[in-house]
């Protein structure tokens, strides 16, 4: 454990009125480091999350996502660097940061011999709610998460989906400004997943800052207005999902249906400049059109379509594939690999 001393006066050390916390971002991470028995789990991580943003946190298994999220939630301590939550130094004053954070871990944690209502009552008491205030707060989160019918059920008997709703209800008890959610949809069935997504969307519309990690990139794409990609504890990309989708984009994937055999298509495509055969599917194939074939992407597509339609392949369907976030993520990882950096998975 390294010895860390705060030598500079941070925003958290100054009085609230002087610090101007209202203008400070929801989360500010600077030069974060974390070691585990010699393993550098988080390396010089720096990023900022603005208030009201819904940010997806993406990375392969072992990339350092959960370690980073636990540090943001003040449950683990960095070996170097700083974390500010709404302007509060989360390392030195974790209790101030905790008031602003709702933490939703991947496993919601069960107690034997305790009902849903008693669980919420316990956390509401712990948060300092007394008397009628406590009951009102519990009633509000129960209504929001639709836990009404489950109040008398023992929590260790809940399904994963119900448990995750309970976990969200607990995290919302103190009406936090920031929600940190570590793989909340992991292990949920599709229905529970859709429901959780809707709840998160409602919270985002309400102005809450949501920092969420998930392996299902398509889900993050729908919910998040920014994405952070992390690999080996290092930030490899931070930006809007649209920017990310077009990052490292050198070619446009297209789906083409034709009457000729895939082998004939593959041999024909080899003769075309700027067009690559990706993979076949029933009645067609995926091709890749190089971006710089013409002046713009659209003109490159038009040129490729013209060349293909002039052939004897019997093209009857041609459409551009929306580049998926998964593709962007894979491209980023490939790019890193080509630069000689190892990839964790």
């Amino acid at each position: 454990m390294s010895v860390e001393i705060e030598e500079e006066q941070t925003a958290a050390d100054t009085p609230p009125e002087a610090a101007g916390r209202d203008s400070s971002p929801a989360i500010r991470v600077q030069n974060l480091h974390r070691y585990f028995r010699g393993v550098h789990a988080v390396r010089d991580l720096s990023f900022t999350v603005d208030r009201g943003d819904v940010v997806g946190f993406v990375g392969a298994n072992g990339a350092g996502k959960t370690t980073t999220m636990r540090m943001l939630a003040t449950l683990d301590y960095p070996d170097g660097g700083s974390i500010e939550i709404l302007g509060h130094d989360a390392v030195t004053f974790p209790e101030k940061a905790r008031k602003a954070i709702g933490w939703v871990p991947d496993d919601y944690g069960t107690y034997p011999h305790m009902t849903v209502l008693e669980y919420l009552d316990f956390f509401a008491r712990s948060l300092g709610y007394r008397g009628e205030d406590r009951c009102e707060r519990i009633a509000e989160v129960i209504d929001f998460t639709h836990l009404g019918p489950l109040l008398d059920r023992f929590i260790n008997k809940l399904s994963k989906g119900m448990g995750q709703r309970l976990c969200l209800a607990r995290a919302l008890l103190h009406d936090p400004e920031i929600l940190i959610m570590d793989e909340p949809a992991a292990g949920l069935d599709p229905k529970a997943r859709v429901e959780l997504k809707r709840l998160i969307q409602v919270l985002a519309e309400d102005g809450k800052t949501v920092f969420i990690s998930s392996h299902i990139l398509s889900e993050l794409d729908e919910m998040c207005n920014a994405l952070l990609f992390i690999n080996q504890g290092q930030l490899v990309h931070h930006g809007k999902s649209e920017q990310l989708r077009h990052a490292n984009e050198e070619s446009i994937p297209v789906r083409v249906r034709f009457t000729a055999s895939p082998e004939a298509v593959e041999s024909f495509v080899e003769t075309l400049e700027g067009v690559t055969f990706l993979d076949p599917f029933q009645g067609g194939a995926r091709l890749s059109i190089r971006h710089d074939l013409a002046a713009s992407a659209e003109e490159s597509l038009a040129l490729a379509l013209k060349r293909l339609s002039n052939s004897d392949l019997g093209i009857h369907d041609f459409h551009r594939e929306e580049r998926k976030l998964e593709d962007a993520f894979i491209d980023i990882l490939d790019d890193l690999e080509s630069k000689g950096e190892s990839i964790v998975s």
Partner: protein
Amino acid sequence: MSATPPPVIDSPDLIAGPPAEMSARSIGERVLDFPSRIDSMTVKELRQGLRSGSFTALFLVFHTAMLFAVLMGVANDEAKITQGFLIFFSVVAFFIVQPLRALVAVSSERKFQTLDLIQMAGLSTWKIIFGKWLSLASQSALVLVALLPYIILIYFIGEVEILDQILTLLSFFAGSLVMTAWGLTISTFRSALAKVIAILGTLALFFSGFVGFVAGSRLSATGAISGDFWEHLTVWIVSAFLSWYLLAFATSQISSLSENIALKKRLSILGAGVLVLISFFVIDLTTLWINIHDEIFYLVVFAFIFAAIIASVDALSESEGIYQRILEPFRSSKLKAPLAILLTRGWVSAFFFVCFLTVCCFLLLCILDEVSLGELSGYCLAALNTVLLPAIFIRLICRDRIESSAFLAIYVLIHAGIGITASIGYQMLKIFFSHSTAEKVGVVIPHTNLIVLEDNDVTVFTSLTASAITFALLLIAFLFTCRSSLTKICQAMKGPRAA
């Protein structure tokens, strides 16, 4: 939260249930079993604990066994049978069942990741630990109350001193509170190795006579402790202090790095030392009208030294964290740096604290036992070196190779390793060579230096010289391991005051 609830999805669970809209009143009606002023952790633990099978089983088995015992006693017109059952059952309940339940209290929270959630809810680490202990203590109190009617029945069956019985049970209850606090402390250890060592150590102490000294050897034929009220009162006071200290110890195991966990523990142990000293003089003056045995003092001093040893081991294995927040309270003091390097968490201050505490303990023994300081100085320095050696070893050799949570276990293992090896080596040297050779080698290692002093064959001067050289070497090693941290503390104390 002003967000409108999202539309309900057609989940069978939700369709089958009552209307989603919950009123605060209906919630209130269902969670008013405990008033708001009771600590949330105690409420949670009581709700769970009273529902758990172990407590119910304990109660059922107890009443069944006691009814059987009472019937046996009445049939034979003999109170001893019933009383034997009562003592046996109270020992099992207070010293085995309740501490065993405490043993999983925090570790289960950690296992199911609920400890994180509780800490995130803003509950202080002290409230978490104290709430759990209070809940178990309340359940022990329920057992105690349940025992009282049987004592009255025993009184009617045979000639039994009812007051002695009640005082004995109260002392058992006090002992149970200490054991429960210790169980809770063990459950906070992250390292499995530390847990195993602590449990084995407890069992060794339990069976080698610690409890026997307190209770067993003084147990009369009637099952009561043959002590007067003052002895029982001493047991209760000592138990209260040990429980409080152990709870502070447990708290420090789950607290955040930016909390000065050392302050409460270190001040309490120093305060206890002062109280022991004051009580010695006060009781010495009042012996004319209160007849207090020497054993009371031995119990108090033994408990204090026991707590001081735990405090030293704990301090030397504390994880480090030097934050402005920890140092800030010391800036306002005139003593500043000296207080900061004695009472802040971590290895740097632990070294100085342990030196200070050891000297205080031996000064206390000098006063209480009326032994000269010169006689005890050899023991003092050898004991200090014994305590410091494993800690220095950890920081020099394996600091970066092990997690700080395992320091405690590694410390104890190194202690045991050096102690056992050196003691066997010393005895072998005595057998195969000569006493003087064994002593010459023995004084070099702090652990055996204590044995050499006990053998009394070596001059105090030789032992003192060896101890002084060893201490000087340890001090150099200490300064080598923590020069940067020490500099940082001193700089921070001189630096500008943080807001």
